[in-house]
């Protein structure tokens, strides 16, 4: 491609009207507790994989709500279950992650 000395950047704007939230809805149908996440970040703060892999369950749930592909993050999860111990909304986070993996399969 010819170099014109400038490039077009893709807009970073999240457009909720175009967001495909089908996966989020499927997750909520199987794991209703996904709806009560309040984005507190306890799960990601305690996550053993987070510092090395970028995994954040908080961002996974948020990303699904915004119609984003969260697979790259999910791949960093070791399913250790540590996050389940700290979620103040009592979400069985490990189970939720497994369900989500099945949705992606």
């Amino acid at each position, binding site marked *: 491609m010819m170099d014109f000395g400038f490039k077009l950047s893709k807009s970073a704007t*999240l457009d909720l*009207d175009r967001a495909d939230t089908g996966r989020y809805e499927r997750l909520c149908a199987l794991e209703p507790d996904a709806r009560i996440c*309040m984005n507190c970040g306890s799960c990601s703060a305690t996550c053993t994989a987070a510092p090395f892999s970028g995994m954040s369950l908080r961002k996974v749930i*948020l990303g699904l709500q915004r119609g984003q592909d969260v697979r790259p993050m999910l791949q960093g999860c070791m399913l250790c279950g540590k996050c389940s111990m700290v979620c103040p909304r009592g979400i069985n986070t490990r189970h939720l992650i497994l369900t989500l993996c099945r949705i992606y399969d």
Partner: protein
Amino acid sequence: MKENVVVIGGGVAGMEAARQLLLLGYNPILVEQQDHLGGHVAQWNRLFPDMAPAGDLVRRLWDGITDANIFLETRVTSVNRLKDDYLVMLSNGVSISCRAILIASGFKLFDAARKEEYGYGVYDHVVTNADLESWFNGNESDRIPSAPRSVGFVHCVGSRDLKAGNSQCSKVCCITAVKQAIEMKERFPEARVYCFYMDLRLFGKKYEDFYIRAQQEFGIQFIRGRVSEVGETLDGRLQVKAEDTLSGKPLKVQLDLLVLMAGMSCNPDVAELARMARLDIDSDGFLRSLDNTAGIDVSNRPGIFYAGACTGAKTVPETLGEARSAALDIHRYLQGR
């Protein structure tokens, strides 16, 4: 003869205080500018967290004050201190001599049109929390679409906003937004409902449960970010922009209805009252209590007491509680104790 106590303001604070003063053996004289009692609550449909009809509360309070002197569409024109008494003159020509006055002049709903970026008064489908309650009360409005696909709520409109001159949080609008979001979802189950918040301040009994229900049962989406701009599309929908601060990305969405959570600001009429009665005004424009911890109902003048939102944003139960304690403090003051 029963001793007079002038109660200025016939909202729920003034009504409850008058009811208590009657029970304590006084002659409360309730003065209200409007043509009805019950203030803002009388315009509301249902009250959180039990969803009790607001009209029931107002009627119950009415029933308790049938023996009181009530002046509607009446203003206080002067307050003068004569030795131990106050002489209160009213716009209907009545003058009352009394040793105690209760001020229950309430708040003013923030004028949402002042936040120009939200387009209230410009775009038809931008309404306020009060407009929505009026519609819930059965008042027809062509500004509420008949089958909205998506509805948004903007928290903190005119509250926590130094630029608008209101640094304070209005306390009740987070839970009101959650309540109204649920009520919209009940009416329009297919609609997507979003709440745009900066913080969710759900401090009261059962409020957090309400929030969890809104997420769990109603699938209401809470987006952390203040709406910064509203525009209209060619087909008359609203284009809303905010930052999704949890994702760290700008966000846009089209809505059929946007509800602005207008907050509580000080009642501007109180400035004149404060001048006449030489009462202190606080930095937020509300009346200044002698002590914000243990004497919220006490003013800087002997015999003048406060109840409800004239000293700051209050919930209905807080307002009723203050009205009762103010009545008791007046009783003790008049007994010389």
